[in-house]
């Protein structure tokens, strides 16, 4: 999950040590919907996968994102 956390830390004002699987992407990390689009793009590039628009709405926490990546990469 560290790679996911590193990406999210780059996009937010949150240090990696303050991000964990329960961190909420919007409410805790402060990602706007537009930031989320860039984060998704970064995930796709880093993990070589495609995340559909429909699947984005199910990614609420860092843990959700990590689980999705593990299952689809």
């Amino acid at each position, binding site marked *: 999950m560290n790679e996911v956390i590193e990406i999210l830390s780059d996009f937010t*004002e949150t240090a990696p040590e303050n991000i964990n699987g329960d961190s*909420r992407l919007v409410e805790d990390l*402060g990602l*706007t*919907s*537009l930031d989320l689009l*860039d984060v998704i793009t970064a995930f796709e590039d880093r993990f070589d996968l495609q995340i559909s*628009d*429909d699947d984005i709405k199910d990614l609420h926490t860092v843990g959700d994102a990590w689980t999705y990546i593990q299952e689809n990469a």
Partner: protein
Amino acid sequence: MLKLLLFSIEPETDDFLQQKLKYLFEKGTCMDFSANRRLLNESAACWMTLVQELESSGFSIPDFSKTPSGKPFCKGNPVYFSVSHTDGLGAVLICDVPCGIDIEPIRHWNPKSRHRFDCLDACADDTLCTREWTRREAAAKMDDQPLASILKKESLDGYFFSLQWQNAWISGCRKE
């Protein structure tokens, strides 16, 4: 009826923020509590503005609740509202029909993100692309739909406005 309130949000001291949160809790608001202090401060500022505006407009403070997807609303719908904030700017929209608002700083678009959000002629440059994004986010909030559902829709239903303020686009909409 349509009221748009735009405001700058200054950082608060811990004591003052705690007082605000206590007040909002007592008023029964259902704001999101964030571990991120800036977000918490901005969210509290938006809810304070909403509650004070409702009170000064003669509304008794309604019971607030949330839809299953997390959209806050007034039980019984005596009034509709939408709030948005970003980087020290806040916006509150109050209306007599369902409404939505979004505010986003104008930004450089990652080409791949822009390609994903390839909405016709509306995205000729970064500024216009940001404006179109806020229009769509506002529409999604109005309809309580995930943004993905309207990302590539060719036309949006409702009455819309957009304005630029302090390097940000603000778009709002209301039901027809």
